């Protein structure tokens, strides 16, 4: 895992942890028919519109970043995509079928979620937590199968936690906990991975490590982020939200302009285009943008 991840399709197919053959992956996917898609979804409470008519289509293997200030609807959109929250209007589909029709267990075998904070009072080891990811694959009254054990081992190896498998969850640092939750998500053998600000409260080294890990995973990823530079570095595509509506969508270079940043976050910034991805530099109040062309 060095530098920017490769996004080549054949490499992804080899890396697929499930080991299943996926016939749909070789041909050109029908837009809107394969993968996870939100179609004009809204979520209203009695007095507030949290998500307002958002549409999002995900290409296989893409890493899509969700940006926007606090309360712009990022988390709610992720919960709608995961199917743990029902939209008040619109529909979320998986391979063309609405999520309620797919069913909770089948959905959990395809889509895995990593929440902002994972908290438990239960005494669990790292391996116990990762094994939770096998729950949607397991049957009642039956012990775990060899496939379950393999998926857990593979997820531990992928996240570099094999040596820590026996360690107690409560003794882990914030970064290690997030890593463990990602391993748990991988044990679900998902094709879609949803992450809600997974780098919150991590120091910069662990932020980069974590995103490097996520960007290199052989899955389609939607990730809510606060840090615009991290989003620019690790995402293929960005969706910018404000007050539950989509303000901009496109590649980091297309989306992250000084004008958009000012419009959405009400701060001034200058953007330089480095090779590969744009770099954002925020300006102090009253400071002039430097002479370098953006």
């Amino acid at each position, binding site marked *: 895992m060095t530098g920017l991840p490769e996004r080549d399709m054949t490499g992804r197919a080899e890396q697929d942890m499930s080991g299943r053959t996926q016939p749909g992956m070789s041909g050109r996917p029908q837009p809107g028919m394969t993968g996870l898609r939100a179609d004009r979804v809204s979520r209203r409470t009695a007095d507030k519109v949290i998500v307002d008519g958002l549409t999002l289509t995900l290409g296989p293997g893409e890493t899509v970043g969700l940006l926007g200030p606090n309360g712009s609807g990022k988390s709610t959109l992720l*919960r709608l995509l*995961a*199917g*743990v929250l029902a939209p008040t209007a619109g529909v979320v589909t998986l391979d063309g079928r609405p999520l309620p029709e797919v069913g*909770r*267990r*089948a*959905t*959990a*075998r395809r889509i*895995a*979620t990593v*929440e902002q904070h*994972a*908290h*438990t*009072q*239960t*005494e*669990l*080891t790292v391996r*116990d*937590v990762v094994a*939770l*990811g096998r*729950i*949607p694959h*397991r049957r*009642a*009254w039956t*012990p775990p199968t060899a496939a379950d054990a393999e998926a857990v081992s593979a997820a531990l190896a992928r996240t570099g936690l094999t040596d820590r498998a026996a360690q107690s969850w*409560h003794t882990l640092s914030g970064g290690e906990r997030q890593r463990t939750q990602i391993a748990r998500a991988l044990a*679900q053998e998902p094709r879609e991975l949803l992450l809600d600000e997974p780098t919150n409260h991590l120091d910069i080294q662990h932020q980069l490590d974590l995103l490097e890990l996520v960007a290199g995973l052989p899955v389609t990823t939607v990730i809510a982020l606060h840090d615009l530079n991290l989003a620019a570095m690790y995402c293929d595509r960005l969706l910018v939200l404000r007050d539950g509506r989509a303000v901009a969508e496109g590649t980091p270079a297309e989306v992250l302009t000084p004008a958009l940043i000012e419009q959405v976050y009400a701060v001034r910034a200058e953007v330089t285009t480095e090779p590969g991805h744009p770099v954002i530099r925020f300006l102090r109040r009253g400071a002039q943008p430097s002479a370098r062309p953006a």
Partner: protein
Amino acid sequence: MSARTLLLTGGGLAALLMSVAVAVTIGPADISTGDVWASVAAHLGVGESTLTPLRDGIVWNLRMPRTLLAAVCGAGLAVCGAVMQSLLRNPLADPFVLGVSSGASTGAVAVVVLGVGGGAVSLSAGAFLGALLSFALVLLLSHALGGSTDRVVLSGVAAMQLFSALTSFTVLTSADADTTRAVLFWLLGSLTGADWAQVLLCALVLAVVLAVCLGYARTLDAFAFGDEAAAGLGVRVARTRLVLLSATALLTAALVSGAGAIGFVGLVLPHATRALTGAGHARLLPVTALTGAVFLVWVDTLARTALDPQEVPVGVVTSLIGVPAFVAVLYRGRSKA
């Protein structure tokens, strides 16, 4: 089943069988383990009883049903406690957190003191109906309040307060001294009146509910990180909670109607057992059933012999042991808060 699970359940079963066999021999009448085997064998139709009818009666009609009811109650309460703690994500939850025991008391008091049912309804049946009524009230209330785990717990507390008040009011205004003493003894939890019908009924409900809970073992594991994490792992949270709360309430109601509200077994034994088995429910539930059973068999033996010829309500003894353990649970929780 893994080797460790087999070892733990096998060891637990052996310990339970030995505990029952030994506990039955303990008491004022001098009875040996051999006498117990002879009596049991005779009643199961293998071999002749060598005991006098009196001694045979002590074994088969008094001590055996009582010891077995203790085992079934201990097992049932421990399983209910383990399930409630995981389902409500509350380490202090126990089988009575939904007000089931208070409802049972009110039902029992209504029958014994007020004569509801005109003598056709037994104390046990009244307790059972009261328990289910209280549980239904808690479900309705928590549903109206939004259905989250803390609402369920708060609704349970509300129901507990209400039914306790009703019980106290009824006893204080309507009961004579003898009835009050009888009711109080039952309220504190007692296995004194155990008979075979109660043992069989409770064992049957225990078997069914334990099987259901084991079917939900991995689903219970999924609640470790909360309702939403469980939903993300494919669990239908509302449905699962309704099924498991109903199953455990049914079992608790059956146990309470037989033996009164024996406290603390359901709170403490699951915690103690987790230290042995880890948090996975596929292993925790069968093992805690066994530890609960062994625990209550011995506590009841202590309760009926310690101050011989006077008997201490078993619930008093479990609480005397349970309170220090309860404090320890709180103390441990402090470091993780």
